[in-house]
């Protein structure tokens, strides 16, 4: 696959900074009539530094749908409906994203209404307390899934002081207290819903000039803030940790093996090298997948992830074991595979396959305006520019087997390791 001037993100884009610190990125895309707008707030559960406030960024995302004096919820809803827009939002560790996809003629209407709620959000204590219950309902619905519990326990175990210790949903004890945090919610809005935290991504059937013009009109007068959260720095890992979870309902046992890893970077080799190791070690064409899933058929789930994060997070391998008696052996196979990354270089040919995979995967994902906007939202919340994608892929291209070995030897050691095992009560797992 050829990319123009070595740019994997080959579409032309316009990056514009307004005087108040708000950044607008416009990408004209070859899909007629549709525009997708992603408003990225570069604050998520990572920014929840105060005790008792875990889960607040996500809760606040809910409150953003509770209206303004000009657009109370029923009016906001009515306008969205008349435009036929598809609209939603999500929060994760490093970002909160509000996204809407709509027909191009409604661009100004949507931009104006979004600007209004980002600047003039207003809700009653009663609405606030009611919405807290919807968040509690969200926690409850997720709680049937073992992976939610495993991530909760993994983070709580792997981190001591960094806010990655809690999930985006937050600790249950804090969710239960949310109805009582109205005053804090106003402070939260005042701190983070500010132009310097936000990037607007517009992708679709539009010109950069038109996009700038409309966004300036409705967002230009928004006042800059001054708050910066002091995120606690996690000290160097102090030794291997381990937790087991007794699961109340029948399940096959799961094992999660995690190592403290590197912060996202498009230039330093650490995180990009761990990305490639993740594919080399555990993707569907990997040696271990072939052995455990296809040949021995001991596990039916095997994957790993080195998810991009602003601060150092975790390299995680997850597996589900068909027979509880095999848990120990499977776990050893995974640890052994990781140790080998540190002990010996990977074959160059295998490394090149992963690089090719990543290039085609990226190209295949760029198949409609919403997909492009969604990809950009992820990256611009890390580095505020789509250019980080091109830099990251150039860094991938340059990585050598020696780079992967040296990075693996720095990260895959027992002191940074956390293992969480989940099994049905009495399933006979010897972990």
């Amino acid at each position, binding site marked *: 696959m050829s990319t123009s001037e070595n740019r994997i993100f080959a579409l032309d884009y316009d990056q514009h900074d307004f005087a108040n610190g708000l950044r607008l990125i416009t990408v004209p895309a070859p899909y007629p009539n549709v525009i997708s707008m992603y408003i990225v707030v570069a604050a998520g559960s990572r920014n929840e530094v105060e005790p008792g406030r875990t889960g607040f960024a996500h809760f606040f995302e809910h409150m953003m749908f509770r209206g303004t004096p000009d657009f109370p919820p029923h009016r906001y809803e009515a306008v969205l409906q008349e435009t036929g827009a598809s609209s939603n939002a999500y929060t994760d560790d490093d970002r909160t994203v509000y996204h809407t996809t709509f027909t191009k003629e409604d661009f100004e209407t949507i931009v104006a209404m979004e600007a209004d709620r980002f600047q003039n959000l207003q809700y009653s204590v009663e609405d606030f307390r009611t919405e807290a219950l919807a968040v509690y309902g969200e926690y409850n619905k997720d709680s049937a*899934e073992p992976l939610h519990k495993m991530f909760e326990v993994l983070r709580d175990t792997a981190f001591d002081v960094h806010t990655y210790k809690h999930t985006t949903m937050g600790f249950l004890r804090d969710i239960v207290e949310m109805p009582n945090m109205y005053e804090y919610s106003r402070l939260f809005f005042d701190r983070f819903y500010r132009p310097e935290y936000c990037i607007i991504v517009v992708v679709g059937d539009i010109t950069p000039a038109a996009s700038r013009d409309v966004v300036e009109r409705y967002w230009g007068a928004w006042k800059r803030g001054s708050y910066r959260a002091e995120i606690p720095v996690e000290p160097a890992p102090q030794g291997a940790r381990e937790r087991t979870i007794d699961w109340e*309902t*029948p399940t096959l046992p799961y094992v999660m093996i995690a190592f403290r890893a590197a912060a996202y970077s498009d230039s330093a080799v650490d995180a990009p090298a761990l990305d490639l190791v993740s594919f080399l070690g555990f*993707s569907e064409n990997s040696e271990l997948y072939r052995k455990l899933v296809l040949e021995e058929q001991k596990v039916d789930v095997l994957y790993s992830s080195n998810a991009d994060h602003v601060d150092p997070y975790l390299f995680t391998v997850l597996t589900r074991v068909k027979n509880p008696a095999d848990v120990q052996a499977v776990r050893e196979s995974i640890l052994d595979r990781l140790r080998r990354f540190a002990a010996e270089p990977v074959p160059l040919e295998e490394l090149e396959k992963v690089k090719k995979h990543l290039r*085609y*995967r990226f190209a295949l994902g760029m198949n*409609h305006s919403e997909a492009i906007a969604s990809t950009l939202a992820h990256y611009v919340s890390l580095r505020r520019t789509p250019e980080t994608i091109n830099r990251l892929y150039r860094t991938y291209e340059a990585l050598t087997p020696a780079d992967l070995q040296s990075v693996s030897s720095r990260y895959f050691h027992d002191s940074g390791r956390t293992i969480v095992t989940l099994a049905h009560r009495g399933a006979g797992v010897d972990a």
Partner: protein
Amino acid sequence: MRTILLPDSSPLVTLRLVFRTGAASDPPGKPGLAWLTAQMLSGGGTRRMEYAEILNAFFPMASDVSVWVDKEMTSFTAETHRENLDEFYTIFRDMLLDPGWREEDFSRLRDDAVNYLAVALRGQNDEELAKELLYQEIYRHHCYGWHNAGTVSSLQGLTMEDVRGFYGQQFASGNLTLGLAGGYPEGFAQRVIADFHAVLPARAPAAPALNQPKQTPVNTVLIAEKPARSVAISLGFPMDVRRGHSDYPALLVAQSCLGQHRMSSGRLFTRMRQLRGLNYGDYAYIEYFPGGMYTLEPAPNLARSHQIFQLWIRPVEVDVAVFSLRLALHELEKMIRDGPTEEEFQRTRSFLSKYVNLLLKTKAVELGYAADSEFYGIPNYADYVRSELVHLTREKVSAAIQRHWRMDGLSIVMVGPDAGRLRTQLLSSEPTPMTYNSPKPEEILAEDRIVARRDLNVAEDGIRVMPAEQAFA
């Protein structure tokens, strides 16, 4: 064979092959056979290549073959970059036309199917469990009456001969719709068509005989009991309206007014979550919509001769489960009795006439919708909906609702803990009052007093309790 060709200048090429066969064609005593056969094609080796070799070849291209089996359709979808098209297609063709039928693939894929039912659905997704059990309740003694993946015991009894037999009988060019889209080269479409014509038998098997089940006037409740923090609820009834029926567009509007999927505009969402904070959301459906917790848009190629109407009440705490059920029924009854308001109707019609354009995001989806339109005998879905909406009025929507929606003969499924307490509350004439953590307007409190006493029309022998572990046994 029917073909749908959507060539353009994109660097990507999409293949979507839809066979008119599925779980409704599972032979007697062999639920899950269509599912396992399809998995053997998309997740097993070919005569020339082991599955591991296929994965190895596909990996650098970042491509794979996905499959979905529904009652009357089995669809295979793949997307690749045109630079890899030749290499990819050669393997793809063999997967569908020259499968390897290896025992090791069979045992792995059968395990996967069993675990999907016995581990994932029974234990880890109470909402999807409630929805799938609802279909089983409504379609007892019918060839829609088992999960698309079958049952655990049936899967365990299937053999390689069963799978090969089903493939030979059900995968024919006569029941195939072959879709291609994107920047494929000249001559490619002809090549694909010729390949599938040459290998597949021409004559399609007879479609299964289908008719809607009869409903009794009383409501029935199934409680699948399991430890959980809350109770997932789904309820519904069979409905003789599908795409192409003269009342489909009106019911599409009605569904959207009552509970547009995963949007905050519907009445159920507004009154249950927004005003009362009962749960995470509440929605209404006139077509099968699996995996709604993972996706905002409906997936194509779930076309069915028969559909049900259903409500999805996301998990509610046990204490308010029966009140929530009563409130959902109250909203349904109001919609049946009064229809949408004129303002609601206008707003929803405007929404749908634009929203249908956003549904067809990718070539894969566009091909899928085209195959569905062919199944239902309607034009392009977006054109069909838009042109029909123009002629609708509020009165027509209200009349269609009254013709097809009902308050009796409901099947209700609850998944969660404390079945005994739920059962007692469902049968008792005692009200289930609501309390809140903040003051509510008198309008809400007055409505609650009515809702709390609502008759559920359930008789003692109309409630069954089973352990969730017995689902899909």
